[in-house]
């Protein structure tokens, strides 16, 4: 026989379950715009029916339900999309930082414009022709000196800006390493909390959201691989070595390397062994610092070296108005021409020293100046296949290709990441329409359960207060 009060219990369970589910809806609506939040839902199931099969079971017609219970709060999350998204964001942030820095470098060259190296070179060569045309004209010689000083200035300032940019990139590498350490530390701490919550059988949904968000951020910085252990802790490794394991993390270190101009070298703090970075923003920054920017500087240097060598060789062969001969036109420190190129002090002090003539005491002879002007057309670079101007033009074109390639890659990755983010949202995002419907569903369920209590109450009232009144007057 069942108790007359059993249904009250069933109704109470319904009230509690609806209230619980409403709280979950409330939480979802509250976090509809929270970054990294995954929607949650209360999973309901029917409680065990009565009676359970046994020889001494109650003699009733069949099993009767006993109501509802909340099994768990489920979190909607697709681990596979997370993995894909992290892989693609790693690549996106690598290309994005490459694009940003290369675009910066591209700006330093001021091409195409009248302020760029290309125009400065044209003015320089033309000045030599003018000196060849009017070797005795002091004004024309002064114009050459100014144009040569300008050319040297443009080369030097471009080179030093690239150096400054490279130093900036190095600073950023240091900052990114700190950021990685901080993320690793916070993930390790969350691991601890998650393991604790999970050990008592609860779902640490919000803690998991927080941890996933941190892992998302970490995957943009460096190439990671991760697995989740049975206790719920996430193990994260970089280059096959654990960065985070359970509640522990192993910090990375950026150590200035005196052998490499005090640029940071990346290591594991624990034992100082080298860290190999294969992806993410950090990889982009390292490639820029160690490959792209030094490459540009080397190209600029190669060009400046050829300019200094060719002009000086031809200049030494000539004679100035004042009889000066065997003099250099440019000075530069061998090996770092682009950083040190300048008009030689003797030329800067006295433009009559500019060797315009092929022989001494020939003031009207501009043939040496014309010979220097003709260097513009000579293929003295890249193993005799390019002129100095042509070499520079090819370099600018290559830089343009590199930047536009980085931009195209960034755009492609952006599309991929956008699509994967949509897929993730499809699974985990909060839909206010759905929540509004759930709100009404559970509200109605709650109302109906309350009505149930009233009904049972009325029934019991009948039995208790109105039955068996025979003989009362």
């Amino acid at each position, binding site marked *: 026989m069942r108790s007359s009060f059993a249904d009250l219990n069933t109704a109470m369970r319904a009230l509690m379950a609806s209230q619980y589910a409403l709280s979950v809806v409330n939480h979802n609506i509250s976090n*509809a715009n929270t970054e990294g939040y995954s929607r949650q839902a209360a999973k309901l199931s029917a409680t065990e029916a009565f009676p359970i099969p046994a020889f001494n079971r109650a003699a009733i017609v069949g099993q009767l339900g006993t109501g509802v219970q909340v099994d768990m709060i489920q979190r909607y999350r697709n681990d596979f999309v997370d993995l894909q998204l992290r892989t693609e964001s790693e690549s996106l942030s690598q290309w994005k930082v490459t694009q940003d820095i*290369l*675009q910066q470098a*591209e*700006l330093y*060259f001021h*091409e*195409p414009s009248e302020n760029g190296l*290309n*125009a400065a*070179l*044209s*003015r320089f*060569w*033309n000045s030599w*022709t*003018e000196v*060849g*045309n*009017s070797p*005795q004209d002091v004004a024309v010689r002064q114009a050459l000196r100014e144009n040569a000083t300008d050319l040297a200035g443009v080369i030097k300032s471009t080179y030093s800006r690239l150096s400054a940019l490279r130093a900036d990139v190095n600073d950023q590498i240091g900052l990114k390493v700190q950021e990685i350490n901080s993320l690793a530390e916070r993930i390790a701490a969350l691991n601890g909390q998650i393991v604790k919550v999970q050990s008592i059988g609860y779902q640490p949904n919000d803690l998991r959201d927080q941890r996933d968000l941190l892992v998302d951020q970490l995957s943009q910085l460096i190439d990671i691989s991760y697995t989740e252990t049975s206790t719920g802790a996430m193990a994260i490794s970089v280059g096959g070595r654990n960065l985070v394991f359970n509640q522990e993390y192993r910090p990375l270190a950026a150590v200035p390397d005196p052998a490499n101009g005090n640029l940071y070298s990346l290591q594991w703090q624990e034992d100082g062994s080298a860290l190999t970075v294969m992806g993410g923003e950090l990889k982009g920054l390292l490639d820029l610092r160690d490959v792209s920017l030094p490459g540009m500087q080397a190209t600029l240097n190669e060009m400046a070296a050829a300019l200094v060598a060719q002009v000086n060789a031809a200049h030494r062969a000539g004679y100035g108005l004042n009889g000066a001969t065997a003099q250099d036109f440019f000075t530069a420190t061998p090996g770092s021409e682009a950083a040190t190129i300048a008009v030689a002090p003797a030329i800067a002090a006295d433009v009559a020293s500019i060797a315009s*003539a092929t022989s001494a*005491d*020939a*003031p*009207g*002879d*501009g*043939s040496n100046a*014309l010979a220097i*002007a*003709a260097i*513009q*057309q000579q293929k003295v670079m890249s193993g005799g296949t390019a002129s100095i*101007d042509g070499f*520079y*033009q*090819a370099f*600018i*074109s*290559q*830089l*343009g*290709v*590199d*930047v*536009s390639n980085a*931009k195209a890659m960034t755009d492609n990755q952006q599309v991929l990441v*956008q699509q994967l983010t*949509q897929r993730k*949202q*499809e699974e985990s*995002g*909060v*839909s*206010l*329409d759905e929540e*509004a*419907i759930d709100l*009404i569903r559970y509200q109605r369920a709650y109302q109906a359960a309350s009505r149930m209590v009233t009904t049972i109450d009325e029934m019991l009232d009948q039995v208790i207060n109105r039955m068996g009144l025979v003989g009362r007057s």
Partner: protein
Amino acid sequence: MRITNRMLSDDLIYNLRRNTERLSKVQQQISSGKRFTRPSEDPTGVSQVLTLSAEAARTDQYLRNLDNAKAWLGATDTALSDLTAIVQRARELALQGSNDTMSAEDRRSIAKEVEQLLEHAVQTGNTALGGQYLFAGFQTDTAPFTLSGGPPPTTVTYNGDNGEIQRTIGPGQSLTINSQAGAEFKALFETLISLRDTLDAGNRPGSQVNVLDAHLDGLLELSTQAGARLNRVEMTTDRLNEIKLNLSALRSATEDTQVDEAAIDLMSAQNVYQAGLAAGAKVIQPSLLDYLR
């Protein structure tokens, strides 16, 4: 597919960003008049523009060189014509002096005119353009011919050399612009001195008439040479002007915005952007909550 509110707004932001990017690019192309302002926007185009602008600068320089050569050769031509006139007059005077009816007195007065011609001739030989002596070889800062002795002067000295002054008129092409006239002129001036002395002494000029004829031939040769060079200068100038025009047309085709095309692009970008805004405004606003009691 399950669509959430966040997806709608993310999508809207992403697409509006792409549309504004496109709009801003077309707008920039129209307002700057250039299809690109950075190498990465069109690496090939920028490379072409760099080559074309360097070539245009070089061509401008060649044209300046040619102008300069033209001035120099023009001055040379004038000087040579003047000298030719002087020699013709001297020859007339020599023939006049050869006439048997001439008295010694008459010849002495002719000698005075020859003296004037000599001074004029030396002056012409010392013609300068912009402070540079035309017939001095590389010694352009020194008057090439000086008369000494006398008076009247008896000796001519040539202070110049045989330097050939060149102008670059194209890649690997140069043109000598000065006439190598030092020896020729010196001999001419010496002939005039000897003619003057012969007449001054009251004698009949003899072979000097023939020598003057030879000088006329020599001057003609120099004149022809200068004329031929001037011709080459003019032809090259025409050709380079044409090349300059082509270069600027090519450059413009490479880097200038095609305004009509860009205007259409702008309009279509604007339409897409506005349509996006309109659709977005409709989609992100309502939710079921608007319709529940």
